[in-house]
């Protein structure tokens, strides 16, 4: 489903983020990208999401060249296929939970009933419905994360990308997130998590753990569940 072929990424300041990466993720797989900060994990997620373009190589999702999509179609691709859970959640703090989760649906101009149904569905799924009117800036870390996850899932994407999802959470909340991942996996979502949190490395429902170092893939281990 997702293929990275000989992908390199060099930023404008000549920092090499990725060097000749080859990676394949099959539909419904849960893949963990592990590595220290600056190893290139987040860059891989951004390339798959189409918010970054590689310096060389191809990024294919469902056999489509994502890197070659013009901005307009790249946004459309994200809207239809990707749910992105950012490291710092990237919520809009002055909007309520409800308004934040609704954001991906705003341009679609859905009818009121359909919109309500989608919102209620994800808010119930990620148990944040009781806080729907509260401004995001007034939420706890765990609640903010659940809001971010709900937002990433509101358009029912096939692919979930999570960048350091537990970096700002305590262990209890990190465990809660892992349960959410399990739930998403059961929904047959393709999930890639970039993390250096050891909690993820020995999970029985993870399909692949890939270690990264200095923009290169070091090791792939297949977890047999």
């Amino acid at each position, binding site marked *: 489903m997702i293929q990275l072929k000989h992908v390199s990424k060099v930023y404008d300041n000549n920092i090499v983020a990725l060097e000749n990466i080859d990676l394949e993720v099959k539909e419904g797989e849960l893949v963990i990208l592990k590595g220290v900060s600056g190893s290139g994990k987040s860059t891989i997620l*951004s390339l798959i999401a189409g918010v970054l373009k590689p310096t060389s190589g191809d990024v294919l999702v469902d056999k489509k060249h994502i890197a070659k999509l013009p*901005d307009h179609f790249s*946004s459309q691709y994200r809207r239809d296929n990707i749910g*992105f859970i950012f490291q710092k959640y990237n919520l809009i703090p002055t909007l309520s939970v409800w*308004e934040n989760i609704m954001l*991906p649906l*705003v*341009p679609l*101009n859905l009818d009121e009933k359909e919109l309500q149904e989608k919102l209620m569905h994800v808010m119930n799924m990620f148990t944040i419905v009781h806080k729907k009117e509260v401004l995001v800036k007034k939420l706890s870390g765990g609640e903010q994360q659940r809001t971010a996850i709900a937002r990433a899932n509101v358009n029912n994407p096939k692919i979930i990308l999570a960048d350091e999802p537990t970096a700002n959470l305590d262990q209890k909340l990190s465990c809660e997130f892992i349960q959410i991942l399990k739930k998403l996996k059961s929904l047959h979502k393709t999930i890639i998590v970039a993390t250096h949190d050891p909690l993820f490395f020995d999970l029985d429902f993870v399909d692949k753990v890939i270690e990264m170092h200095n923009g290169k893939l070091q090791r792939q281990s297949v977890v047999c569940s």
Partner: protein
Amino acid sequence: MKKINLYLLEYALGYIVRYRAKNIFIGVVLTLLIAVLASFFFVQNSLQYELASTLDAQPQIIVTNQKAGRDTTVDEKMIEKLLTIKGVGDVTSRVWGYYEFKHMNAKFVIVGIDTFENQYNTTLADIANNGELNASSMLIGEGVQKILNKSYYRDYFNFMTPDLHVQKIYIAGVFKAATTLESNNMIVMSKDTARKIFGYTSSEATDLAVSVTNPDELSAILVKIQNLFPTFHVITRKDFKIALQNQFDKTSSIFLTLFIITLFTFFMIVYDKSSGLSSEEKKEIAILKAIGWKIEDVLKARLYEGLIISLVAYLSGIILALFFVYVLNAPVIKNIFIDYNDMTNDFVLPFVVDYETLFLLFLLSLPVYMFATVIPSWRVATLDADEVMR
């Protein structure tokens, strides 16, 4: 047809509220600018309407005598000669002029009439028909009454003649004219009394009012008069209007040029302010792009914001201008157009608001403002979302 995206509109409204400090500042400045521009147009329209009405009350042709290139008095004997020209319907001598009331820094227009004559405008015809004038009385306009009252001249006024004699004239009443500009500083009295005040002889007149039977022949008659009396200056009502319009256009263009410079300076400030989007605002655009908003969605939201702010500013500006011009009577701005005297400035502006003016104001304010706000956002929206979020 695609229905309006109300969610996007709601988002835009929320954005305005969330960044209210900046938006209120821009909204208030834009409101004030539109109010000033609208006031200017309203005053101009009202004055043009008022002057056009006043000029419509003028004779079709005015004949003045000139000496050394300056207007001087005309002898009433000329009337008979003018009446011999074919096509001339009527000729009336006019005795009128300015009287400076230095004590109050005001200038009156004295108009002399003979009640048995045909009058060249309705106000004078009404006064003549009432027959309230005699050799020692006058009728005054409402503006004149105000000025005289301030100096305790409630029943009479002492005019000073050129040979320094005092001419005491009683106030017989106050007349109401067709236009406030006309009635504001006008005093009507008998021709003989007016002559005394101006120091004219009994056959002297200020000028001659000529009316023609067929308006289509106006230019032909004009040539005939000019040929018969080469030293006379012949002017038509149309010439008057053109001269006045030129004066208006000159004043308007100076003001408008200054205003447009101010307006564009404002838009440049807005542009600059929007270009310097805060990191929060830039991040918000990047987040929206990362979650699937297209550039056009971001721009649409900014367009809605611009539309809401500028529409509110436009409507508030128009309401403010209407209040300023038609309730407060446009202090300061009115003086830009009128440079007569204090009393003339005191007249009430008639309510004249046309769709063209409102549309012009709309075009000058809304699209330019929206353009100034959308471009900087477009620049941010075209950046890589990842780059902005990092």
